[in-house]
């Protein structure tokens, strides 16, 4: 079920990434500095799936946004296929962008409410040199994420959660990306629908030779989708390793706690805020 992680080349390389948010002074409060990411390094090889796991607010989403080119890091480098994306000019960045595609947690909001499914996907196809007719391409893309072509003329609000998430994926696929950044792809879905999505993502990974950067707080689903896992807390990685090893033999207490939390059978008396 896991992709081979043999000596394929490095796709994404992140070195000593630091992200600091300046909270501007407001009417009532003074300036604040928030260190969201505090020196994180990792790399993802082609075909590999790397997961960052941590509780909300640990800084994992900031890494994703920074890798997508939305949040400027205060220090460190993010290289994609050897190019430091924060040193590219706007045009080069625009050309690079299709290769890194996001699939957001908030699937509802990531589809333009005023566009039909067809329009949403053709917008993505615009940037690609097209050898097929657009409607064929759309149908094929929908098919590859397991959706019926009849869905093309619907608007996002007429779709179920699972369908929306699949459209998101289809749009990403339209660009022939190398890396998908999956921000909690299944956590707000029903279990069954979530499992189906994981199945789909796994098969797509094979078919299209994709790499994933997965971001989640839930170890039990991450396990199904990742080769390597990093545990993140307060802006730094506290432990990392191959998925199975890490889950079987966690060395850090925090990791243990996370693993423990996904098992509810032993509800104990310990509680913390």
């Amino acid at each position: 079920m896991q992709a081979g992680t043999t000596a394929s080349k490095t796709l994404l390389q992140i070195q000593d990434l630091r992200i600091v948010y300046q909270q501007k002074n407001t009417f009532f409060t003074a300036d604040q500095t928030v260190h969201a990411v505090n020196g994180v390094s990792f790399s993802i090889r082609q075909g590999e799936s790397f997961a960052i796991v941590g509780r909300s607010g640990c800084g994992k989403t900031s890494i994703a946004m920074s890798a997508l080119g939305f949040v400027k890091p205060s220090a460190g480098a993010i290289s994609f296929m050897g190019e430091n994306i924060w040193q590219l000019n706007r045009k080069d960045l625009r050309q690079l962008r299709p290769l890194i595609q996001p699939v957001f947690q908030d699937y509802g909001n990531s589809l333009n409410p005023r566009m039909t499914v067809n329009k949403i996907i053709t917008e993505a196809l615009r940037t690609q040199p097209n050898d097929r007719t657009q409607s064929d391409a759309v149908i094929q893309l929908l098919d590859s994420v397991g959706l019926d072509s009849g869905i093309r003329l619907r608007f996002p609000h007429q779709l179920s959660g699972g369908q929306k998430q699949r459209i998101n994926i289809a749009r990403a696929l339209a660009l022939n990306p190398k890396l998908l950044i999956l921000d909690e792809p299944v956590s707000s879905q029903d279990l069954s629908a979530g499992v189906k999505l994981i199945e789909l993502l796994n098969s797509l990974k094979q078919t299209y030779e994709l790499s994933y950067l997965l971001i989640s707080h839930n170890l039990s689903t991450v396990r199904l989708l990742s080769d390597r896992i990093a545990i993140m807390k307060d802006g730094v990685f506290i432990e990392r390793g191959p998925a199975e090893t890490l889950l079987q033999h966690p060395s850090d207490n925090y990791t243990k706690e996370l693993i423990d939390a996904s098992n509810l059978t032993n509800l104990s008396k310990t509680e913390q805020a």
Partner: protein
Amino acid sequence: MKRIVNIICSDKSLYAGSILIGIIIIFSLTGPLLSPYNYSSQNLSEALQSPSISHPLGTDYYGRDVLARIMHGGQITLGIALLATTIAVLTGIIIGLISAFVGGWLDRILMRLVDIMLGFPKLFIILLVIGMGYSSIGLIILFLAIFSWMEIARIVRSEVLVIREQLYIKSAEAIGLRRRRIIFIHILPNVMGTIIVSSVLLISTLILIESSISFLGLGVQPPNASWGTILTEGRIDPIGTWWISVFSGIFIIAAIIGFNLIGDGLRNILDPKFTENT
């Protein structure tokens, strides 16, 4: 077309407003073609007749047919309001977009300008400007527009700032689309609903302001007449010549109500916050 009709029928106030405005527009545009009287031709021997069969809404001080004048006045009043609104809305959109996308000091300057312009009591400042002697129709339109674009600019700016942070715009950026395309194809259509609602409401505000200026004795010059100037002509003797001001007043109120209803209706349709069980 069918879709538009369907939309109009889907909301009661939109339906009522559209019919009201439809009637007023048709009345103003086709009326003059059907009326036997010209809005400006005088017949001093028939001056100040109360409503009768030959003059359904009576005649004014010069023996002009009030009905014909109100029909003509409709063209002027609605024309002024619509043109000024168009100019104001276009200006507002452009400035709002510039402010949102360029940001920085330009944004700050533009928004300060908006603050300043909003700070002027609108009626007073237009009164001041027109009272100072700039009173041709073109200038009235211009000044109405100059003092009306700010709301639209503000709305566009703040909506754009919100929408720009939405994930679907982030997705569009991640696709690698050009900025122009993102602005005009992805962002603007999402702001359009609010803009349309505010524009329609702006039309009614401008009709109100135009008639208020005319009420104070400034405004459109003869032989042209807006509803406001017709109303004011009748105000010299509101009881003896009631038909002049009453009928033009009714049209002013009807037009304003009509546009307000349309605005409300559109808001009901476009903004789920305002949805009510109908």
